[in-house]
């Protein structure tokens, strides 16, 4: 077993998930079975292989430039209103579970 119950509790905390006792047990079983399968990646020697974060790195990039200049295709003028107008308060807050006229409302912030 690679993952222990303690790991499950710790990762759930990192992910802001509150798991029930039953969920904790299933999660322990599933994570171990999935990660065991993932371990086959270790069969590959990747010491000289660069990581690939995204596909866009391969397209539209200007190889003759340096640094962020290489990604010039992805940038745009910095305009105050942006590409679309900001949402009015009322619309932006319309889906909020709790809000007043200007702000989202949340319960009191108390350190755990």
């Amino acid at each position, binding site marked *: 077993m690679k*993952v222990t119950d303690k*790991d*499950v509790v710790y*990762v*759930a905390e*990192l*992910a*802001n*998930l*509150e*798991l*029930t006792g039953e*969920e904790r047990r299933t*999660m322990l079983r*599933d*994570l171990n*079975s*999935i*990660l065991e*399968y*993932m*371990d*086959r*990646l*270790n*069969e*590959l020697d*990747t010491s000289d*292989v*660069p*990581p*690939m*974060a*995204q*596909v*866009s790195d*391969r*397209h*539209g990039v200007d190889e003759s430039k340096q640094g962020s200049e290489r990604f010039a*295709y*992805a*940038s*745009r003028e910095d305009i105050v209103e942006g*590409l*679309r107008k900001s*949402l009015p308060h009322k*619309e*932006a807050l*319309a*889906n*909020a*579970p*709790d809000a007043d006229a200007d702000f*989202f409302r*949340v*319960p*009191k*912030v*108390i350190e*755990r």
Partner: protein
Amino acid sequence: MDLTSLTIDSARSAIAERKTTALALAEAHYAHIQKENAQIGAYLTLSKERALEQADRIDRMAAEGKPLPALGGVPVGIKDVMSTRGVRTTAGSKSLEHYIPPYDCTAVARMEAAGAVVLGKLNCDEFAMGSSNENSAFRPVRNPRDLARVPGGSSGGSAAAVAANMAVATLGSDTGGSIRQPASFCGVVGLMPTYGRVSRYGLIAFASSLDHIGPLTKTVKDAAIVLRAIAGRDPMDSTSADVPVPDYVAELDKPVRGMKIGVAQEYFAEGLDDEVRQAVESAIEKLKNLGCEIVPVSLPHTAYAIPTYYLIATAEASANLARYDGVRCSLRARGVKTLSEMYRRSREEGFGAEVKRRIMLGTYALSAGYYDAYYLKAQKVRTLLTRDFDEAFAKVDAIVTPTSPTAAFRLGEKSNDPLAMYLADIYTVTADLAGIPGISIPCGKTKENLPIGLQILGKHFDESTILRLAHAYEACR
């Protein structure tokens, strides 16, 4: 004229020639949905007001004798992971059960600008995570070809709606096969464009480096028409590519003779169902008869694609789904006293089992001490998988594979074994990881009369070639 069995072209010209109206077409589809949806479960929300308004606009154009746009009056459905202004968008999740977006997804806006009539929002696996549509928080979708079976996932509603004539065409999203696999299971056409070909703006994010929007349709030509409408640079998505959009329809009829088609033995290995193998092999034979040259290619890292995909996709998902915290638009648990309790309890109540599993897996893979061993390792293998394709495509114009190792499986068959479910994506995840386009088209049926899908993969931004091949195969099938 049966109004619910039309293709995009036949629907649009029937309206243009005043044989029917966009309104009649929309009403006929709604009547059909009313009759079928209780059983199939493809639609979660209908957007009747919006649809009828658009239909009226198209009918007025037709009455004035104006030329109709490419999708003029065509009834379509949208997977419920694409935001629609004023129309509930749930992503198949309880956490967004009451969410009404204040803006439109670019792909949806472009469909409407091209004249499409949006009938409603289509069921899917929660946050597009699943291969059977059983992870929808609302209800599973059933396969219209066999109601005891799954339609595939995650765009199960999008595929089922087209298969059951509840829409002429639909939009789906594909992160690990979620357009192509359900298209294969339901016997329709499903196209995943190149990464960056279609803007992701307004798509509820699952794994941002892997998410693609694309069409599910009755014919290859329809897929070409929809892609033409939604493709192209969008300033709202910096990863959308500034690459010219060809006229895919005009390219369809170019000859395929002399095209080089790769066949990789890694896609015909253990686990492939015999009937699927036979159907795909006979499709390859047909392509040969069309004058294509069949070339063996090797994609040696294919066996590592599933672990690579499920590490990268879950890592990205764990970050993307952090936003569902019960503050701005997602479900908030009742009776909570502190902010941190609110976060945890809201997410506990709002997310289903598979979404939690993926958030946990992704968080684990990114956590201190495991980042290098899992996430970084997977990113490196992603490079190797992409190089496999680069090398193969130096020799061939397209690669042909089965879309899925089996035809549609039964509801409940894999739902208690997450790993078995993940392995259903074995032939599709590679294209998402490499960012190349892929299409699934029907290529026969099993003895139990279940559709089988043929997958054609192409070079980056070369959708034209795979559409052309698919179109040629469709014509001789």
